[in-house]
């Protein structure tokens, strides 16, 4: 890892000496302390002198902060320092009051997280009820879901995916770390199964079949 740094310096010999790893660790530590939001590896690297290896420095820091009152966590492609979850009770005065989410919003959020990318029609199919505009808006506003790619099916519907802010809020490294994801997948509960008798959807591999939604159409 540290060789990488040496290599890139070799390209510009003598221009800058790469700081020793201990010093790089200090720098990354200072940067992480400075940020409230997760900061990407690239953004860290951009602040460091050329030739530094922030990935290695982060590895050292993660070990250093393991079990401490503050931990280094990974959020998607970014990193952040967060207080240890078991000490949350000490921070009563720092608590952020969350707006209470409706049951519809919570379920919709879970469906987007576990089924992403997912279309509105698919969310409605799973819940068996129309998703109100306000529910989606609220989740978008919280920056917990965002628009993903359009589905390549007739109508090219938009899909929803969860955001990095969602991962950050729920302390997840990635959407793959969602609790019980593996079990749900193995139980076939994340599959798209067309209603028997309905013509198999052309784009069935692209997501849940549409047949189901017809059931609830009026």
């Amino acid at each position, binding site marked *: 890892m540290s060789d990488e740094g040496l290599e890139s310096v070799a390209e510009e010999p003598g221009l800058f000496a790469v700081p020793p790893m201990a010093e790089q660790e200090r720098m990354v530590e200072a940067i992480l302390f400075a940020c409230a939001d997760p900061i990407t590896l690239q953004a860290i690297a951009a602040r460091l002198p050329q030739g530094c290896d922030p990935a290695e420095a982060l590895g050292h820091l993660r070990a250093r902060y393991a079990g401490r009152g503050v931990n280094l966590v990974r959020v998607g492609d970014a990193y952040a320092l967060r207080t240890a979850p078991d000490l949350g009770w000490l921070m009563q005065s720092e608590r952020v009051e969350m707006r209470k989410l409706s049951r519809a919003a*919570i379920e919709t959020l879970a469906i987007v997280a576990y089924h992403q990318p997912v279309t509105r029609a698919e969310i409605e199919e799973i819940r068996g009820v129309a998703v109100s505009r306000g529910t989606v808006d609220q989740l978008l506003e919280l920056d917990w879901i965002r628009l993903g790619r359009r589905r390549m099916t007739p109508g090219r519907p938009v899909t929803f995916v969860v955001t990095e802010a969602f991962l950050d809020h729920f302390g997840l490294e990635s959407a793959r770390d969602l609790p019980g994801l593996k079990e749900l997948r193995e139980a076939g509960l994340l599959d798209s199964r067309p209603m028997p008798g309905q013509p198999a959807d052309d784009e069935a591999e692209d997501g849940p079949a549409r047949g189901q939604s017809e059931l609830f*159409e009026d």
Partner: protein
Amino acid sequence: MQDDWDKPETVTARREAEALIVDVAGFEGPLDLLLTLSRAQKVDLRRISVLHLAEQYLGFVEQARALRIELAADYLVMAAWLAYLKSRLLLPPEPGEDGPTGEELAAHLAWQLERLQAMREAAARLMGRDQKGRDFFVRGAPTVLAVSRKTQYEASLLDLMRAYARLRTRDEFRPYAFDRSDIYPYEAALERLTQLLPGAQDWTALQRYLPEGWRGKPARQRSAIASTFAATLELAKQGRIELRQSETFAPLHLRRRMDRGSADE
């Protein structure tokens, strides 16, 4: 247990059904209602009796009708579909009939309910996780990563030249009247000429009477000539000067009018 469902007139079942009707607004659609009803069977969703579930649902809709409670359309669509499913489950398939069996349809409905239930549980687990701002906290005093915003102005040589070209061409299109600095006013010409008149005893070209600084640049010279010429016309009209031109477009000459001048003397 099965008997209970077959006889909805049993007290518990009736109470349950009534409770459901009263709470109909609390359900998030027919699937949610079916899921709630299925809990009454107290079995794993995979072993649920879809037939009984369908019957219970239909009983619920029936009661709602009897109580003149208006049900949303999708509840009725579901009821119609469940009635169809029930008939498929109870009647032997007609010979040569295509399409899914009642069992396949029932299995799919059971799977849908299981999936909804799974998502409910997943949502609950998600909300039960440590949350930012509640269980773990961000840096309270983040250093403002000082973005010393340095504005670098860009201007290319082309911009510079364009600007200059714009300035130089603007004069050519500008309404003439606005160009005060290059205009020699008629009043000034008349005053100047009147002052110079006593010395104008010999024929002198009009050009010679142009003021200093108005002879070089064409625009200024034009203005001065025009004003001075207009002034000579005025003075000629007053009979104070004489004008002479040897031929068309030849230089214009002027001198003080002698007869009158000598009369003055």
